[in-house]
């Protein structure tokens, strides 16, 4: 992957690459869900877990995944940044 550090900044290239990787994971999840809504709504109506259907489970899952990935990103960035830097 090309270096995507920001012009004009000292750009933490590794942090940006981690962010980019997590971004693509979410893109796959989100647009995978949209594809199911568009082309296989029958799958979303099924209730594989017995209780709520897959439409609601995956919607709640996407919200949870956004939070989970953002926390992973924050922790990963803290690990690649120099110790003591950027802590408030």
């Amino acid at each position, binding site marked *: 992957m090309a270096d995507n550090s920001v012009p*004009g*900044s000292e*750009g933490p290239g590794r942090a940006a690459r981690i*962010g980019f990787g997590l971004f693509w994971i979410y893109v796959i999840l989100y647009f995978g869900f949209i594809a199911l809504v*568009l082309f296989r709504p029958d799958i979303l109506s099924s209730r594989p877990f017995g209780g709520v259907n897959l*439409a*609601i489970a995956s*919607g709640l899952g*996407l919200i949870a995944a*956004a939070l989970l990935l953002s926390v992973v990103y924050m922790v990963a960035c803290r690990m690649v940044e120099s110790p003591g830097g950027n802590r408030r």
Partner: protein
Amino acid sequence: MLYESSPVAIAIFASFVLAVVGLSFWLGRKGQSAKGYYAAHGEIHWFINGIAFAGDYLSAASFLGICGMIAFHGFDGFLYSIGFLAGWIVALFVIAEPIKSLGKFTFADALDAKYNSRGIKLSVAISTLVVSIFYLIPQMVGAGDLIVPLLGLPHAVGVILVGIAVTLIVVTAGMVSTTWVQFIKGSLLVFFCGVLTSMILARGLTVNTGSLEPQTRSVTPDGRVLVDGEPQTRDHDLRPVGTLAALPARYGDATTTGPLGPLEYLSVLEDSRIVTWSGKKSSDASGTHTVYTPTERAGTDLLKPGGYFKGLTTGKLADKLDFASLMLALFCGTASLPHILIRYYTVKDAAAARKSTVVGIAAIGAFYVLTLFLGLGAMTSGALDPTSTNMAAPLLAKSFSETLFAVISAIAFTTVLGTVSGLIMAGSGAVAHDLVENVLGIPMNDAEKVRCGKIAAVGLGIVAMALGILFRSFNVSFLVGWAFNIAASANLPALVMLLFWPRTTKEGIISAVTVGMVASLTWILLSADTFEKVYGLSRDASPVPFSQPGLVTIPLGFIVLIVVSLLTKAQPQGKPA
């Protein structure tokens, strides 16, 4: 339906407005620098900024619009929640840190950091103003719509009241007071939606068939409103709707479930039968008539996609593309909204920008999960107004208590205050900092920059009030969709390519912003939705195949930027540092 104005709602709203305006004056009591006015000195704590993101972002469309859509159409309203939240992933992983590193006061600063071009500043300032004004209109219209039933005041009074309060908030202490208003609003909104959801779960689900007789609302040519042929009064009004017809078979003869857990609530609702209402409009010599009729439906039907986006079930390609385009615009739009982007300048560094986005995602994500329960709770509350989807959340609160109704109504107003103050702040920066100082090249010292920003804020406040009154009959969520599409088409290609493609030229950026903005705006003005809802023409007369432009105009922005950058690559470019 006719509503009684609630003195408690007026008192709570008035005390909130007075408190935040008072706070703004207190925060603005000291002399201000330009950095203080436009970027809160870059000293806002990341947690406060994160909640302020939620206060900035969760507009009336999120709170009232999504709850209403879920209450009347089921799962499809939740698709908006999913799309609105997903946009924050783009903001966090792609945009947050670079925009913080590149910019100073406005979005144009960031795009222009490498080039120092008046053309970029001009095109981006115009796109900021266009997006902010498109976003402002529905907020102001929403404020007016709310004030009519809740406080018993005319529509225009609501618009003017919000306009004056917001202008005072922005003018007194700029981004500092705007941030605190958004923080307070974001906290209140998430907290009280949590309280309301707990009450919904504690109440559980109860069978309440109510009357299933159709109801008719007519408006005569002389403006009188009739209900079932008789003049509308408090004693002779439309009946509230939205009921549960039957619980799942496992409950036997029981008519109520008692308290339920969150997943249990969804599961029971899915196995229940629910009565929803829809209206059909017709006109004749005696006036326009809307007949509201009930339909008993299985919970499984309401909790799957296709209740609102009919194209998902008809199989028509254009309808499917329309839906895909909307979801793409929601995904790309958030990170392109100028009033969201300027919030990155209020924190001290890139790490704080990142942390505040994570807090924002947590607060906004929690809110959107709550909207699902609020919408479904309203759907079966027996309290819905068949004529207004926007009133679902306040009326759900009313089904618990008048005080909660007053609190939720007051919060709905504060929702408008928080978002509008952010929009006026973004517009004020675009006019004063980008247009007057950088494009027109009028030199200003620090105090003059602040004064110019405040004059711009007052001007924008007046424009917002005028537009709120002028566009009062427009559909609120419809206009928010426009703003997302224009923001994503005009701003995102330039922003992403600037960050990730070293061969991007200033001509490429100017062309992408201009073409993206003009193309998406033109597409919207030619769409079937606009033909039908704005011009009152037939949908078939529209020359564009589907209404949401993002699917075409976002890629168009990227293509234009790449082609123009390649054609103008002779321009000397320094390698990115």
